[in-house]
């Protein structure tokens, strides 16, 4: 699933490790989500969106709208 995680992270000057610590997941998880190799569960996707203070659809691109 495509997403804007890398851009949002860069805008805040956060490293993958920093974001991972904020989300309480591994850096590999952040990397896998950023590169679209892993689709997060709905609770984790909400946690990511809430961390950036955005709506979920502002972080993740709907596969049907791709």
């Amino acid at each position: 699933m495509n997403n804007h995680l890398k851009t949002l992270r860069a805008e805040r000057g956060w490293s993958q490790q920093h974001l991972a610590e904020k989300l309480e997941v591994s850096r590999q998880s952040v990397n896998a989500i950023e590169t679209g190799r892993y689709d997060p569960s709905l609770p984790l996707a909400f946690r990511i969106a809430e961390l950036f203070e955005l709506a979920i659809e502002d972080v993740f691109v709907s596969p049907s709208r791709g």
Partner: protein
Amino acid sequence: MQRRNMAQRRYLLRFMPLMVCYALILIGVSAAQRHGAIAGATLGVMSVLPAIPLVGVIIVMGMYLREERDEFIRNRLVMAMLGGTGLLLAATTIWGFLENNGVVGHPPTFLVFPFWCGAMGITQCAMALHSRLTNPAE
């Protein structure tokens, strides 16, 4: 090098003593069998003893899978376990047909768990290699 999370640390704290127990029991049982003729119920109990810590390892692996909070790591572990199970089923199916026709002998069945662990390790290596090739930033 990624730091271990709480679930991984708990897994190691449970796994290590079990492996020490396994080694000690195996040494003890082998020594007892060398020194005296053991038979009957004692032999039965002694034969089962080394399996107990290994059954414990299987339980500890299940507990880790349940306790791992990082869903990506948990997903990868489940995929590795499925890969290991697939390799084990394929190998035992092929072996079974070879055995049926007398090409090979009967394998020691206690090797099934170590084989599964090895097959799971091979799957994890393949997954890591695939990630590295498709995503150099990993």
